[in-house]
Protein backbone atom coordinates (compact mmCIF):
# COMPACT_ATOMS: atom_id res chain seq x y z
CA UNK A 1 0.00 0.00 0.00
CA UNK A 2 2.83 2.37 0.87
CA UNK A 3 4.36 2.21 -2.59
CA UNK A 4 0.97 2.79 -4.19
CA UNK A 5 0.44 5.86 -2.02
CA UNK A 6 3.81 7.29 -2.91
CA UNK A 7 3.24 6.87 -6.62
CA UNK A 8 -0.33 8.17 -6.50
CA UNK A 9 0.35 11.15 -4.23
CA UNK A 10 -2.82 12.03 -2.34
CA UNK A 11 -5.34 9.35 -1.38
CA UNK A 12 -8.04 11.18 -3.37
CA UNK A 13 -7.95 14.21 -5.57
CA UNK A 14 -9.10 17.39 -3.79
CA UNK A 15 -11.17 18.45 -6.80
CA UNK A 16 -13.14 15.18 -6.96
CA UNK A 17 -15.86 16.61 -4.73
CA UNK A 18 -16.88 19.09 -7.43
CA UNK A 19 -17.59 16.42 -10.05
CA UNK A 20 -21.13 16.42 -11.41
CA UNK A 21 -22.60 12.92 -11.36
CA UNK A 22 -26.00 11.68 -12.48
CA UNK A 23 -28.10 10.63 -9.51
CA UNK A 24 -29.45 7.40 -10.96
CA UNK A 25 -26.34 5.80 -12.42
CA UNK A 26 -24.87 6.13 -15.89
CA UNK A 27 -22.28 8.62 -17.04
CA UNK A 28 -24.01 10.83 -19.60
CA UNK A 29 -25.15 14.22 -18.30
CA UNK A 30 -27.84 15.82 -20.45
CA UNK A 31 -29.66 19.02 -19.67
CA UNK A 32 -32.57 17.01 -18.22
CA UNK A 33 -30.47 14.49 -16.21
CA UNK A 34 -31.02 14.78 -12.46
CA UNK A 35 -27.51 15.18 -11.03
CA UNK A 36 -26.10 15.80 -7.59
CA UNK A 37 -26.13 19.53 -8.41
CA UNK A 38 -29.87 19.32 -9.09
CA UNK A 39 -30.41 17.44 -5.84
CA UNK A 40 -28.56 19.98 -3.70
CA UNK A 41 -30.23 22.95 -5.41
CA UNK A 42 -33.59 21.34 -4.72
CA UNK A 43 -32.56 20.81 -1.08
CA UNK A 44 -31.58 24.49 -0.91
CA UNK A 45 -35.02 25.54 -2.12
CA UNK A 46 -36.65 23.12 0.34
CA UNK A 47 -34.65 24.61 3.23
CA UNK A 48 -35.62 28.15 2.23
CA UNK A 49 -39.24 27.02 1.97
CA UNK A 50 -39.07 25.36 5.38
CA UNK A 51 -37.58 28.43 7.03
CA UNK A 52 -39.68 31.16 5.47
CA UNK A 53 -43.01 29.48 4.75
CA UNK A 54 -43.34 26.74 7.36
CA UNK A 55 -41.27 28.56 9.97
CA UNK A 56 -43.33 31.74 9.91
CA UNK A 57 -46.70 30.04 9.42
CA UNK A 58 -47.74 30.70 13.03
CA UNK A 59 -47.36 34.50 12.53
CA UNK A 60 -46.93 34.78 16.29
CA UNK A 61 -46.61 38.19 17.94
CA UNK A 62 -43.93 36.72 20.14
CA UNK A 63 -41.99 34.79 17.47
CA UNK A 64 -40.86 31.24 17.89
CA UNK A 65 -37.16 30.50 17.44
CA UNK A 66 -37.46 29.64 13.73
CA UNK A 67 -39.70 32.61 13.04
CA UNK A 68 -37.23 34.98 14.66
CA UNK A 69 -34.40 33.58 12.52
CA UNK A 70 -36.51 34.26 9.42
CA UNK A 71 -37.37 37.75 10.67
CA UNK A 72 -33.72 38.50 11.48
CA UNK A 73 -32.63 37.54 7.97
CA UNK A 74 -35.42 39.54 6.38
CA UNK A 75 -34.67 42.61 8.47
CA UNK A 76 -30.92 42.33 7.86
CA UNK A 77 -31.23 42.36 4.06
CA UNK A 78 -34.04 44.92 4.12
CA UNK A 79 -31.84 47.33 6.07
CA UNK A 80 -28.88 46.62 3.79
CA UNK A 81 -30.86 47.43 0.63
CA UNK A 82 -32.20 50.60 2.24
CA UNK A 83 -28.78 51.75 3.50
CA UNK A 84 -26.71 50.93 0.42
CA UNK A 85 -29.08 51.40 -2.53
CA UNK A 86 -31.55 53.92 -1.10
CA UNK A 87 -35.25 53.92 -0.28
CA UNK A 88 -36.41 53.72 -3.90
CA UNK A 89 -34.47 50.46 -4.33
CA UNK A 90 -36.77 48.68 -1.86
CA UNK A 91 -39.00 47.80 -4.84
CA UNK A 92 -36.30 45.33 -5.88
CA UNK A 93 -35.84 43.91 -2.38
CA UNK A 94 -37.63 40.57 -3.11
CA UNK A 95 -35.16 39.68 -5.85
CA UNK A 96 -32.12 40.62 -3.77
CA UNK A 97 -33.44 38.67 -0.80
CA UNK A 98 -34.08 35.64 -3.01
CA UNK A 99 -30.52 35.73 -4.31
CA UNK A 100 -29.15 36.09 -0.78
CA UNK A 101 -31.19 33.17 0.54
CA UNK A 102 -30.21 30.89 -2.31
CA UNK A 103 -26.50 31.64 -1.91
CA UNK A 104 -26.39 31.48 1.86
CA UNK A 105 -28.32 28.19 1.98
CA UNK A 106 -26.30 26.51 -0.75
CA UNK A 107 -23.07 27.66 0.93
CA UNK A 108 -24.12 26.26 4.29
CA UNK A 109 -25.56 23.04 2.85
CA UNK A 110 -22.28 22.55 1.01
CA UNK A 111 -20.49 22.50 4.36
CA UNK A 112 -22.25 19.28 5.40
CA UNK A 113 -20.00 16.25 5.04
CA UNK A 114 -20.51 14.45 1.71
CA UNK A 115 -22.51 17.41 0.42
CA UNK A 116 -22.17 19.04 -2.97
CA UNK A 117 -21.62 22.82 -3.07
CA UNK A 118 -23.69 24.17 -5.93
CA UNK A 119 -22.18 27.65 -5.61
CA UNK A 120 -18.68 26.25 -6.17
CA UNK A 121 -19.52 25.93 -9.86
CA UNK A 122 -18.86 28.96 -12.00
CA UNK A 123 -21.83 27.96 -14.19
CA UNK A 124 -24.20 28.52 -11.26
CA UNK A 125 -22.70 31.76 -10.01
CA UNK A 126 -22.26 33.13 -13.54
CA UNK A 127 -26.00 32.78 -14.12
CA UNK A 128 -26.68 34.61 -10.85
CA UNK A 129 -24.20 37.37 -11.71
CA UNK A 130 -25.34 37.72 -15.32
CA UNK A 131 -28.95 37.98 -14.16
CA UNK A 132 -27.94 40.82 -11.83
CA UNK A 133 -25.80 42.49 -14.49
CA UNK A 134 -28.46 42.38 -17.24
CA UNK A 135 -31.25 43.46 -14.89
CA UNK A 136 -29.23 46.37 -13.57
CA UNK A 137 -28.09 47.53 -17.02
CA UNK A 138 -31.60 47.35 -18.51
CA UNK A 139 -33.02 49.01 -15.41
CA UNK A 140 -30.49 51.82 -15.68
CA UNK A 141 -31.43 52.59 -19.27
CA UNK A 142 -35.16 52.29 -18.56
CA UNK A 143 -34.99 54.60 -15.54
CA UNK A 144 -32.51 57.19 -16.84
CA UNK A 145 -32.52 56.81 -20.63
CA UNK A 146 -29.25 57.90 -22.15
CA UNK A 147 -28.47 59.65 -18.85
CA UNK A 148 -27.31 56.27 -17.58
CA UNK A 149 -24.15 56.77 -19.64
CA UNK A 150 -23.17 59.61 -17.29
CA UNK A 151 -22.09 56.77 -14.98
CA UNK A 152 -18.99 56.55 -17.18
CA UNK A 153 -18.46 60.33 -17.59
CA UNK A 154 -17.15 61.47 -14.24
CA UNK A 155 -17.95 65.17 -14.06
CA UNK A 156 -15.97 65.63 -10.85
CA UNK A 157 -12.68 64.87 -12.65
CA UNK A 158 -10.74 67.47 -14.69
CA UNK A 159 -11.85 67.57 -18.33
CA UNK A 160 -8.65 66.20 -19.99
CA UNK A 161 -8.75 63.16 -17.71
CA UNK A 162 -12.37 62.30 -18.39
CA UNK A 163 -12.00 60.27 -21.63
CA UNK A 164 -9.33 58.12 -20.00
CA UNK A 165 -11.46 57.64 -16.89
CA UNK A 166 -14.46 56.84 -19.09
CA UNK A 167 -12.47 54.07 -20.76
CA UNK A 168 -11.45 52.64 -17.37
CA UNK A 169 -15.02 52.91 -16.08
CA UNK A 170 -16.42 51.09 -19.13
CA UNK A 171 -13.90 48.28 -18.75
CA UNK A 172 -14.57 47.95 -15.03
CA UNK A 173 -18.30 47.98 -15.73
CA UNK A 174 -18.05 45.00 -18.06
CA UNK A 175 -15.69 43.11 -15.74
CA UNK A 176 -18.34 43.32 -12.99
CA UNK A 177 -20.20 40.09 -13.82
CA UNK A 178 -16.88 38.23 -14.13
CA UNK A 179 -15.54 39.27 -10.75
CA UNK A 180 -19.00 39.03 -9.19
CA UNK A 181 -19.41 35.38 -10.16
CA UNK A 182 -15.84 34.17 -9.81
CA UNK A 183 -15.47 35.70 -6.35
CA UNK A 184 -18.21 33.47 -4.99
CA UNK A 185 -17.30 30.32 -6.94
CA UNK A 186 -13.57 30.76 -6.32
CA UNK A 187 -13.97 31.26 -2.58
CA UNK A 188 -16.23 28.23 -2.22
CA UNK A 189 -14.08 26.01 -4.43
CA UNK A 190 -10.80 27.05 -2.81
CA UNK A 191 -12.08 26.58 0.74
CA UNK A 192 -13.50 23.15 0.11
CA UNK A 193 -10.41 22.06 -1.80
CA UNK A 194 -8.19 23.13 1.14
CA UNK A 195 -10.30 21.04 3.52
CA UNK A 196 -9.93 18.06 1.19
CA UNK A 197 -6.17 18.54 0.87
CA UNK A 198 -5.78 18.35 4.65
CA UNK A 199 -8.23 15.44 4.76
CA UNK A 200 -5.97 13.59 2.35
CA UNK A 201 -2.99 14.14 4.66
CA UNK A 202 -4.90 12.92 7.73
CA UNK A 203 -4.61 9.13 7.20
CA UNK A 204 -0.82 9.39 6.82
CA UNK A 205 -0.34 7.73 10.23
CA UNK A 206 -1.72 4.51 8.75
CA UNK A 207 0.96 4.53 6.08
CA UNK A 208 4.09 5.69 7.88
CA UNK A 209 4.11 5.85 11.66
CA UNK A 210 7.23 8.04 11.68
CA UNK A 211 6.13 11.29 10.10
CA UNK A 212 2.47 10.32 10.29
CA UNK A 213 2.43 10.70 14.09
CA UNK A 214 3.16 14.40 13.65
CA UNK A 215 1.22 15.09 10.46
CA UNK A 216 -2.08 13.37 11.32
CA UNK A 217 -3.00 15.36 14.47
CA UNK A 218 -1.84 18.58 12.82
CA UNK A 219 -3.96 18.02 9.74
CA UNK A 220 -7.03 17.12 11.80
CA UNK A 221 -6.60 20.36 13.78
CA UNK A 222 -6.15 22.19 10.49
CA UNK A 223 -9.37 20.70 9.07
CA UNK A 224 -11.26 21.87 12.15
CA UNK A 225 -9.80 25.38 11.97
CA UNK A 226 -10.41 25.74 8.24
CA UNK A 227 -13.93 24.40 8.61
CA UNK A 228 -14.62 27.14 11.15
CA UNK A 229 -13.19 29.69 8.72
CA UNK A 230 -15.36 28.25 5.94
CA UNK A 231 -18.52 28.72 8.03
CA UNK A 232 -17.56 32.39 8.28
CA UNK A 233 -16.66 32.61 4.58
CA UNK A 234 -19.92 30.94 3.55
CA UNK A 235 -21.88 33.75 5.16
CA UNK A 236 -19.53 36.58 4.19
CA UNK A 237 -19.49 35.61 0.52
CA UNK A 238 -23.30 35.57 0.40
CA UNK A 239 -23.25 38.95 2.14
CA UNK A 240 -20.67 40.36 -0.28
CA UNK A 241 -22.58 39.08 -3.32
CA UNK A 242 -25.75 40.72 -2.03
CA UNK A 243 -24.12 44.01 -1.07
CA UNK A 244 -22.46 44.29 -4.48
CA UNK A 245 -25.86 43.69 -6.08
CA UNK A 246 -27.11 46.62 -4.00
CA UNK A 247 -24.17 48.77 -5.10
CA UNK A 248 -24.78 47.98 -8.77
CA UNK A 249 -28.48 48.72 -8.28
CA UNK A 250 -27.63 52.07 -6.74
CA UNK A 251 -25.49 52.90 -9.79
CA UNK A 252 -28.43 52.06 -12.05
CA UNK A 253 -30.93 54.14 -10.08
CA UNK A 254 -28.64 57.12 -9.41
CA UNK A 255 -25.90 57.12 -12.07
CA UNK A 256 -24.80 60.72 -11.41
CA UNK A 257 -21.61 60.87 -9.41
Amino acid at each position, binding site marked *: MATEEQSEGLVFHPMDQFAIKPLFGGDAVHMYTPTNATLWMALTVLCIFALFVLGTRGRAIVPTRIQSIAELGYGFIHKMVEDVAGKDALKYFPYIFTVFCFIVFSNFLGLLPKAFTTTSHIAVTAILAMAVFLTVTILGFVKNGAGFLSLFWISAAPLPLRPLLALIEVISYFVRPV*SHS*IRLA*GNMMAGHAVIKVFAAFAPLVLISTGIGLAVTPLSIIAITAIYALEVLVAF*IQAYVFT*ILTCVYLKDALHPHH
Partner: protein
Amino acid sequence: MEGDIVQMGAYIGAGLACTGMGGAAVGVGHVVGNFLSGALRNPSAANGQTATMFIGIAFAEALGIFSFLVALLLMFAV
Protein backbone atom coordinates in the same frame (compact mmCIF):
# COMPACT_ATOMS: atom_id res chain seq x y z
CA MET B 1 7.99 17.38 -27.28
CA GLU B 2 6.66 20.77 -28.20
CA GLY B 3 3.39 20.06 -26.39
CA ASP B 4 5.34 19.10 -23.27
CA ILE B 5 7.09 22.44 -23.22
CA VAL B 6 3.79 24.27 -23.68
CA GLN B 7 2.29 22.30 -20.82
CA MET B 8 5.30 22.98 -18.64
CA GLY B 9 4.98 26.67 -19.36
CA ALA B 10 1.27 26.54 -18.52
CA TYR B 11 1.99 24.82 -15.20
CA ILE B 12 4.75 27.27 -14.31
CA GLY B 13 2.48 30.17 -15.23
CA ALA B 14 -0.36 28.75 -13.14
CA GLY B 15 2.03 28.50 -10.21
CA LEU B 16 3.27 32.03 -10.75
CA ALA B 17 -0.33 33.27 -10.78
CA CYS B 18 -0.41 32.35 -7.09
CA THR B 19 1.69 35.45 -6.38
CA GLY B 20 -1.53 37.37 -7.07
CA MET B 21 -2.77 35.98 -3.77
CA GLY B 22 -0.11 37.98 -1.98
CA GLY B 23 -1.32 41.15 -3.64
CA ALA B 24 -4.91 40.46 -2.66
CA ALA B 25 -3.76 39.71 0.89
CA VAL B 26 -1.95 43.05 1.12
CA GLY B 27 -5.01 44.84 -0.26
CA VAL B 28 -7.53 43.20 2.04
CA GLY B 29 -5.25 43.63 5.04
CA HIS B 30 -4.81 47.30 4.21
CA VAL B 31 -8.56 47.87 3.95
CA VAL B 32 -9.40 46.09 7.20
CA GLY B 33 -6.43 47.53 9.08
CA ASN B 34 -7.35 51.07 8.15
CA PHE B 35 -10.98 50.41 8.98
CA LEU B 36 -9.97 49.08 12.39
CA SER B 37 -7.68 51.99 13.20
CA GLY B 38 -10.44 54.40 12.19
CA ALA B 39 -13.04 52.44 14.12
CA LEU B 40 -10.96 52.45 17.30
CA ARG B 41 -10.60 56.21 17.11
CA ASN B 42 -14.32 56.74 16.61
CA PRO B 43 -16.20 53.59 17.65
CA SER B 44 -19.61 55.25 17.40
CA ALA B 45 -19.20 55.78 13.65
CA ALA B 46 -17.83 52.28 13.02
CA ASN B 47 -21.13 50.40 12.71
CA GLY B 48 -22.35 52.53 9.85
CA GLN B 49 -19.21 51.89 7.83
CA THR B 50 -19.03 48.08 8.04
CA ALA B 51 -20.85 47.74 4.71
CA THR B 52 -18.37 50.10 3.07
CA MET B 53 -15.52 48.02 4.46
CA PHE B 54 -16.97 44.87 2.91
CA ILE B 55 -17.37 46.61 -0.45
CA GLY B 56 -13.72 47.66 -0.23
CA ILE B 57 -12.66 44.11 0.64
CA ALA B 58 -14.67 42.78 -2.29
CA PHE B 59 -12.99 45.15 -4.74
CA ALA B 60 -9.52 44.42 -3.38
CA GLU B 61 -10.22 40.71 -3.49
CA ALA B 62 -11.52 40.85 -7.07
CA LEU B 63 -8.02 41.49 -8.39
CA GLY B 64 -6.70 38.48 -6.50
CA ILE B 65 -9.55 36.47 -8.02
CA PHE B 66 -8.38 37.47 -11.49
CA SER B 67 -5.06 35.73 -10.85
CA PHE B 68 -7.07 32.64 -9.93
CA LEU B 69 -8.88 33.08 -13.25
CA VAL B 70 -5.56 33.27 -15.09
CA ALA B 71 -4.41 30.09 -13.35
CA LEU B 72 -7.64 28.32 -14.32
CA LEU B 73 -7.28 29.44 -17.94
CA LEU B 74 -3.70 28.21 -18.05
CA MET B 75 -4.59 24.86 -16.53
CA PHE B 76 -7.71 24.06 -18.53
CA ALA B 77 -7.99 26.37 -21.54
CA VAL B 78 -4.50 26.87 -22.98
